[in-house]
């Protein structure tokens, strides 16, 4: 009944399970720092957290900084609704993540790595600490990592305390420094001035786990899957109204329809892709592809079955944002509350068309005027639900 006994996550065949631990790191330590970065850049690996920034480019910026110390931070604040792939990766492939961190640290010249673990995953902390200790004992962390003189790197786990916005990298840094998780203005970007105002690279858990795979299996292997602009495979967290929810690995470019067939969700009415900050994709668009150039996603797929109330979805998501807005900037702090109130009026049938149009205008304002991704994306789902399911919503 308790923790580990009840967590059983369905998966298909994962690449992470087939990679020999240590192979990627060994390959990296034989390369120069510049060559590691070139290799990751050539693989065209993009950030798996959802934003899709090229990892090699990020590393190159940080490597070019002359100030030290530098930090390599693993973003394990997986708070996007419907996302749980990082939970699986940290539970089962923590070594790969730390290998990726070590390779990244070597590439940029960092001596300390931090795993920012969300409070909700507190039960994973001991496991991660054990993996760190084991790696230290076997010379894979600590002084002269892997026998390479002059390369010292340690990893620590830092706990979050329950705030969705801390998944945003500058808010995450604020939290690490002991402040409220309020996003910073960018520039300067963290690669120039991040944790404690030092150059810091922040990568998603999955991104880091792919790095040793690329080093072990080669750039060509990685680029042979996926699309031109979205290379490689991606882990998708699939939940909601389907027969086999779980974590699935698919190549980028898979259509929504194909993904639904694989998990037994063909009769879906819509799919919420990218979590609360993502968009609602109706049945008529199931031939679209999951890739950075079509529907970008951090991997959250919530299947909405026939007969479900779309307004309930919008209500749930806006309630989430009204609760999780950090409150720093006005469009987001007040806007999400107003949109939530509007959805409640819609559910009661007391929202006029004029007022609904005003809300749409407000939603657009929030998208352009909010400071960080939270406020810029919180109304996307609401607007896409109004666009595709207007008939269902106006009829009450």
């Amino acid at each position, binding site marked *: 009944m308790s923790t580990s006994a009840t967590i059983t996550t369905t998966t298909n065949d994962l690449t992470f399970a087939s990679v020999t631990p240590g192979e990627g790191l060994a390959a990296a330590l034989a390369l120069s720092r510049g060559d590691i970065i070139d290799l990751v850049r050539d693989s065209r690996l993009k950030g798996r957290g959802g934003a899709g920034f090229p990892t090699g480019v990020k590393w190159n910026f940080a490597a070019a900084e002359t100030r030290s110390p530098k930090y390599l931070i693993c973003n394990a604040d997986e708070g996007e609704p419907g996302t749980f792939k990082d939970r699986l990766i940290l539970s089962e492939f923590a070594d790969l993540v730390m290998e990726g961190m070590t390779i990244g640290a070597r590439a940029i010249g960092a001596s300390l790595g931090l795993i920012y673990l969300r409070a909700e995953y507190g*039960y994973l902390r001991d496991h991660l600490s054990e993996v760190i200790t084991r790696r230290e004992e076997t010379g894979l962390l600590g002084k002269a990592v892997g026998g390479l003189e002059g390369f010292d790197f340690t990893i620590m786990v830092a706990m979050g305390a329950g705030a969705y916005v801390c998944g945003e990298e500058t808010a995450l840094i604020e939290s690490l420094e*002991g402040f409220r998780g309020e996003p910073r203005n960018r520039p300067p970007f963290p690669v120039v001035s991040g944790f404690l105002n030092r150059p810091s690279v922040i990568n998603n858990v999955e991104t880091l786990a792919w790095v040793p795979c690329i080093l072990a299996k080669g750039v060509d292997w990685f680029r042979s899957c996926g699309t031109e602009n979205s290379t490689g495979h991606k882990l998708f967290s699939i939940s909601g109204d389907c027969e086999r929810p779980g974590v699935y690995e698919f190549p980028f470019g898979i259509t929504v329809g194909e993904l639904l067939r694989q998990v037994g969700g063909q009769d879906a009415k819509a799919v919420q892709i990218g979590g609360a900050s993502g968009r609602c994709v109706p049945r008529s668009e199931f031939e679209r592809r999951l890739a950075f150039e079509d529907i970008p996603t951090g991997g959250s797929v919530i299947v909405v079955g026939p007969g479900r109330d779309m307004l309930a979805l919008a209500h749930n998501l806006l309630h989430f944002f009204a609760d999780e807005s950090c409150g720093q900037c006005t469009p987001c702090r007040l806007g999400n509350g107003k949109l939530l109130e509007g959805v409640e009026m819609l559910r009661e049938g007391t929202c006029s068309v004029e007022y609904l149009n005003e809300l749409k205008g407000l939603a657009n304002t929030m998208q352009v005027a909010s400071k960080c991704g939270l406020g810029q994306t919180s109304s996307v789902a609401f607007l896409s639900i109004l666009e595709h399911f207007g008939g269902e919503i106006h009829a009450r």
Partner: protein
Amino acid sequence: MLITDRERLRDDVLAVAELTGNNRASLIPILREVKRKYRGIDNYAMQLIADVLGIHPVEVDAVATFYAFVQPRTEGRFVFRLCRTFSCELAGKESVAKQLERDLGIAFGETTTDGSFTLEWANCMGMCDQGPAMLVNEEVYTRLTPDSVHEIVKEYRNRSERFSSQAAQVSRPAPSPRLIAECDS
């Protein structure tokens, strides 16, 4: 708060600061530890933490009130956090929520009068494929049904009672042999 309690709190805060460094970055680790051990962060604790870290107490308050897991208010020994996000909603969190309220005898946001249980909502806790899901302190429970939460609450009631009876024994220590000997003479 007793002077001895205050001393104990100071020792606990200093112990974390010792471990993580006597700087601002230790604030959240300290808040987490104080909340875990004392179940709340009162004004005295905030001033103490501020003093140790060399910051203004309002900074401590601002951070504690920002994060869901270190809210200053005193909570129960066991905090039940039911996920309210959409996947868990689709999986039937509403009936589980009602059962929790019935079994614990409190509404969401409340703490039982004996200080044993707090019931709260949580935003997505990453168990979307096996919802409805709930955290009790750091333990996670998945695929909940009204029946299974009833059993879980029962289990925690037993734990809470064991805890209370142990605490009672500790607070009334048996006289030490030496004391008895002195009394005899």
